C-alpha cells in the first residue's frame, strides 16, 4: 500500500508543477495591459505605469517571475486580486463554501436518486422501468445544463412563482456565517423562515448541477450491477436458496458499489465545470461565477489563483479516490 501511495505521489507531484506552470503562463498570455485595465478609462502617466509594473513584478524576466510565483505559493500567497486588492486565497476561501454547499447537495441528490434507479433497472433488466431509467439517464447526460437551468427558472420561478431566481438567501435575513453553509447557518441563526428561504434558493441550482452526475451514477450503477449479477458467486448464493433481497443487497451490491464509488469521486471535476454554468445562471456567489467574472474583468491574479486552487482540489480528491480504491480493491494496487 505504501508503494502504491508513493507511486501515486510520483505522478501527482510533477503534475502539480505542471499545473502551476500552466496557471502562471496562461495568465501572462492574456491579451490587454493589466496595468492599464487597472486604471480604467482615466489613463495614467508613464511613471505611474512603470511604478505599477514594478509593483506587480510585470517588468522582470518571465522565468524570474515564475520563480517568484513558486516562492509565493510556497508561503501560501496566491496573489492579490487586481480589482478588489484582496488576497486571492481569501476571496477563494470566502466563496468556496457556497460552491461546496451547492456541490454537496447536487451530489447527494445524484446519489440518492441515481443509485437506487440504477440498481432497480439492473435487477429488472429489459422492463419498462429499465428503459425509462436508461432513456432518462442518457437524456440527462446529453443535457446542456445552462439551458436546463433556464427552463427550471421559467417553470418554477416564472410560472409557479415557487422559487427565487438568484442568490443564496433572501435579503430579509442576516446572520454571521458560522459554517459557511447557508442551510446549516440559517438553522443555527434560529430566525423563522431563514432555512426555508435558503432551501428554496438552493434547490434549483442543486438539481441543475446534479443532473449529469445523476445520469452518470445511474448508468454506472446499472452496468456494475449487471456485471456482478452474472458472476459465479451470485449464482452460488442464489443456488444456496438465499432470498433475492439478500443476494442483491449483501452479495451483489457491495461489489457493484466499488466502481460506482470511484465514479462518484471522479465527479469533482464535472461539478466544478458545471458550477461555472450553474452559478452564472442562478447568480450563485461561488467559485464558478467568480472565475467567469474574473475572466471578463481580466483580473489576472484572481484567474491564476483560482485556476491553480481548483486544479489542486480536483487533483487532491482524485488522489484520495485512487487511494481508497486501492485500499478496497488490492488488484488495482498491483497493476502497472
Amino acid at each position: 500500500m505504501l508503494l502504491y501511495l508513493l507511486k501515486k505521489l510520483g505522478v501527482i507531484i510533477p503534475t502539480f508543477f505542471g499545473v502551476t506552470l500552466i496557471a502562471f503562463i496562461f495568465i501572462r498570455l492574456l491579451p490587454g495591459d493589466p496595468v492599464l485595465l487597472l486604471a480604467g478609462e482615466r489613463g495614467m502617466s508613464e511613471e505611474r505605469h512603470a511604478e505599477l509594473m514594478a509593483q506587480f513584478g510585470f517588468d522582470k524576466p518571465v522565468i524570474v517571475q515564475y520563480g517568484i510565483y513558486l516562492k509565493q505559493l510556497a508561503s501560501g500567497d496566491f496573489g492579490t486580486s487586481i480589482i478588489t486588492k484582496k488576497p486571492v486565497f481569501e476571496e477563494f476561501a470566502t466563496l468556496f463554501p457556497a460552491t461546496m454547499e451547492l456541490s454537496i447537495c447536487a451530489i447527494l441528490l445524484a446519489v440518492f436518486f441515481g443509485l437506487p434507479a440504477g440498481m432497480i433497472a439492473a435487477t429488472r433488466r429489459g422492463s419498462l422501468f429499465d428503459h425509462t431509467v436508461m432513456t432518462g439517464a442518457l437524456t440527462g447526460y446529453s443535457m446542456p445544463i445552462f439551458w436546463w437551468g433556464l427552463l427550471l427558472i421559467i417553470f418554477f420561478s416564472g410560472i409557479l412563482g415557487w422559487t427565487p431566481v438568484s442568490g443564496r438567501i433572501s435579503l430579509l435575513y442576516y446572520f454571521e456565517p458560522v459554517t459557511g453553509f447557508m442551510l446549516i447557518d440559517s438553522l443555527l441563526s434560529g430566525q423563522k423562515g431563514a432555512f426555508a428561504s435558503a432551501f428554496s434558493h438552493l434547490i434549483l441550482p442543486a438539481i441543475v448541477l446534479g443532473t449529469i452526475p445523476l445520469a452518470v451514477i445511474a448508468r454506472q450503477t446499472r452496468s456494475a450491477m449487471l456485471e456482478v449479477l452474472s458472476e459465479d458467486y451470485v449464482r452460488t448464493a442464489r443456488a444456496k436458496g438465499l432470498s433475492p433481497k439478500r443476494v442483491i443487497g449483501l452479495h451483489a451490491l457491495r461489489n457493484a458499489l466499488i466502481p460506482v464509488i470511484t465514479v462518484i469521486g471522479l465527479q469533482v471535476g464535472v461539478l466544478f465545470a458545471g458550477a461555472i454554468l450553474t452559478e452564472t445562471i442562478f447568480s450563485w456567489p461561488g467559485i464558478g461565477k467568480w472565475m467567469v467574472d474574473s475572466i471578463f474583468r481580466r483580473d489576472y491574479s484572481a484567474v491564476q489563483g483560482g485556476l491553480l486552487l481548483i486544479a489542486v482540489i480536483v487533483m487532491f480528491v482524485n488522489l484520495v479516490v485512487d487511494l481508497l480504491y486501492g485500499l478496497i480493491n488490492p488488484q488495482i494496487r498491483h497493476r502497472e
Partner: protein
Amino acid sequence: MSETIIPTARDDRPAGFQAVLREFWAYFSENRGAVAGLFFFIAIILVAIFADLIAPHGPNVQYRDALLQPPFWQAGGDSRFLLGTDATGRDMLSRLIYGSRYSLFIGCIVVSISLVVGIILGLVAGFFRGRVDTFIMRVMDVVIAFPSLLLALVLVAILGPSLINAMIAIAIVQQPHYVRLTRAAVMTVMTKDYVTAARVVGVRSPRLMFVTILPNCMAPLIVQAALSFSTAILDAAALGFLGMGAQPPTPEWGTMLAEAREFILRAWWVVTFPGVAILTTVLAINLMGDGLRDALDPKLKRS
C-alpha cells in the same frame, strides 16, 4: 482487411470490407435507440446541407414589424414565423436550421483535430515508451487536472472569444482522452505476435506504427470520437452561452440562448427552442455512440 479493422475479429468470418460492414450493422441495428439516433443525425446533416432551401427566411433578416412574436399556434402568432421571432424580429426556425451547420461543423473540426493529434501522440508514447512516453503522459495529466470547461474558458480568454478559438480550446481540452486511449490500445497490440513478426521481417517504425498497429486500435477510438463529438457540441454551446464562443449575430445555438436570456420570463420560445435543438442533437449522437460501442466492442456488450 477484415482482421485489421476489428481487433476481436474471428477467423471464421467471411472476408472483405462488405462483410465487416454487414456484421457491424447486424450488431448496431440490434440497438433500436442507436438506429433512431443515426436517422436523426442523418436528418440533421441533411438540414444543415440544405439549409438554404429549407429555411423560410434568412438567419439574420430582421422583421421590424414582428418583434418577439410567439410560435404560430399561440395567440398573436403568425404562420410566417412557425416558431416565432426573437427580440430583433429574426425568424427562430430559420436561425435554428442554420445553427445546425455550426454545431456539426464544431463537432467535425474538434473531433478531427483531437483525433489526429491524439493518435499521433498516443502512438508515439505507446510505441517508443521511456522518456517520450513519460513526458507526453505527464503533460496530459496536467491538462486533465483542470475541469474541462474551465480550461477551455481560460484558453478562449487568451485566444480571444470566437468560434474558431472555442473549437481549438475544446480540442485541446479533449486531447488527453484520445492520447490515453491510443496509448493503451497500442501497448496491447504491441504484445501481439503479428507485430513481432512484422518487426522480425524488418518493417520500419513509421510503417509498423501506422500500418500494422494503428488499424488494430481503431475500435475504441471510433467510439470515443462519437462521444466527444457530442461533448464538443455541448461545450461549444456552453462557451457561446457564456459569451466566449461564437459571437452574435451568428445563429449558433448556445449564442442564441445567451441572447435570449433577458427575455426568459417574457418569451419562452426564444429560450426553449435552441436548447431543444442542442439536447436532441447531442442525445442522437450519444445514442449512436452507445450503439457503436456495443457493435465494435463485444466485450462491453450488453453491460
